[in-house]
């Protein structure tokens, strides 16, 4: 079973992702911000990280930069989510593999996660 770490401050969005991915058979971990996510990474080694861009305490770019600096986690793909279009954000930060524009449909989320984990969408 693949493990996905969801880093999202909006509890409604985090719960939506958790439910959708658990329905698809993934094991899902949650963190409300980057600092909390780093703590979780001390005990868990997820196969995929989905992170929001804007979060309190530690935002998505800071968190992702720290993950990419870790030898044992640098290879873990990161899906960066934001309500701001990627064109407006990429100039400031590009340490992620996939961008997911909010709001998104569940089908799109499942497809993006499947592709990032090397699974067939269908």
């Amino acid at each position, binding site marked *: 079973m693949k493990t996905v770490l969801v880093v999202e401050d909006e509890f409604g969005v985090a719960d939506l992702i958790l439910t959708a991915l658990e329905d698809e058979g993934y094991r899902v971990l949650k963190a409300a911000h980057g600092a909390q996510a780093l703590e979780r990474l001390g005990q868990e080694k997820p196969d995929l990280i989905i992170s929001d861009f804007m979060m309190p*305490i530690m935002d998505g770019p800071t968190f992702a930069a720290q993950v990419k600096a870790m030898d044992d986690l640098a290879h873990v793909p990161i899906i960066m989510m934001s309500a701001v279009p990627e064109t407006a954000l990429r100039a400031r930060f590009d340490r992620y593999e996939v961008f997911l524009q909010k709001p998104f449909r569940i089908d799109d989320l499942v497809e993006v996660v499947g592709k990032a984990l090397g699974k067939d969408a269908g």
Partner: protein
Amino acid sequence: MGQGMGEAQAPETVPRTASGVPGLDTVLNGGFVEGGVYIVQGDPGSGKTILANQICYKHIEGGGRVLYVTLLAESHSRLLQQLGTLSFFDQAAVSDQIVYVSGFTTLEEDGLPGLLNLLRREIKGRKATMLVLDGFLATQASASSERDFKKFIHDLQGQVAAAGCTTFLLTNDDGRASRPERTMVDGIVQMVRRPSGDRTERYLEVVKLRSSAFLEGRHAYSIDSDGYHVHPRFEALYATPSRHDDVGEDRYTTGAPSLDAVIGGGLRTTSTSAVIGPSGAGKTTIGIQFIGASTPEEPGLLFGFYETPPRLKVKAKRIGVDLDALTASGAVEILWQAPTEPVFDALGHRLVDAVRRRKVKRLLVDGLGGFIAAASEPSRISRFFAALANELRVLGVTTLYTMETRDLFGAQVEVPIDNISSLVENLLYMRFVERQSRMARILAIVKMRDSDFDPALREYTIDDSGIHIGQPFVGAEALMTGFAHESASEPRPAPLPPRA
């Protein structure tokens, strides 16, 4: 400390953060006090979130930085989608100068102390100079006691004041006037939507504003693609005219020589006049002639409701007034408002702003009924027009209103405004009369303050050079009832004077 704010204000040294929302800073006497905590409270759908964001983006324009924290509120993606339709929204600023984060999980897991800690860290880390807490009601629900809640507010006030971070708490109105935070915060802005006939009225009221005067009472607001527009209650803002009243001694021609001749040579400058009469009597004709005498040095404004500018231009051309040329030269500006669902106070401000902008000296308000129809509270109308007349007078404007009466004929005259005589200095009344199987038009000068005028009733005609006032109407009685009958002597009206 609220008051009606006129010209004289005590000097204030409190640093302020302007809201940047048109009209709101006027109500607030300059803006919110920097580092203060303010409740923005209103019914669902009243636009609290839009107002707060508009203030935030204006703050960013001035170099500020904003922390926008949601609790139980709409999702950030939905919020940004909505903001994307508004002109003040600046996508490039999001995640840099303005950051949207959720504090709800922290509130759930660590309670009010945890939320307070999060806010402190974020304000400091992001160097925020403005904070919005959207969905504030959730904090009270998380408090274990009223004392804890008060402590949270108290600590938050201390925190943001020390950081110089002006803070807005957005919350729904639960109808409890005695909520503890209301007594603690620096100010409260209340927003209300209410049905009024087929319309929905929106108004805003500053309930409290510490360390500052403000404009008390309800102020209408509207929301369009530029966001919020607050329309300060006109008669409150102009309770005292903005300048000293210099009484005009000169006269302005009405543009109709034969009318000037019977009113002592023209209208006294800075006076207010009304021409009332039924549809088709020629009120707008007099108005157009009056405005047609404008020059670039003494500019005129035609503020109309019912007849669109193209129609007015055609009408003017028929009596020899070239409104196209007058507007091209800068002598005249035409402002037309569709008499559909305008905001009463917005009309007043639009009018005064236009007068100020061009230093207008001649003003024609064509169709005063358009103004009156916009008033949802009839009790305000007289006060509104008294304030308008006073302000126009001190701005050096000579004003002419046209106003329609309902009936073409009849013994009674219904004017759509009470106390019209007390609101204008000069009153001209036009009407149709039936006499000897012929329809005639007569003019009565009801009132002409500080002027000699001929009170006789006069027949008038309108042709391609405008209005022509005839000699006194003799030989008939009961003309003003609309049903004339011959008097015992002098059975015929005097002939009209020869045209120039």
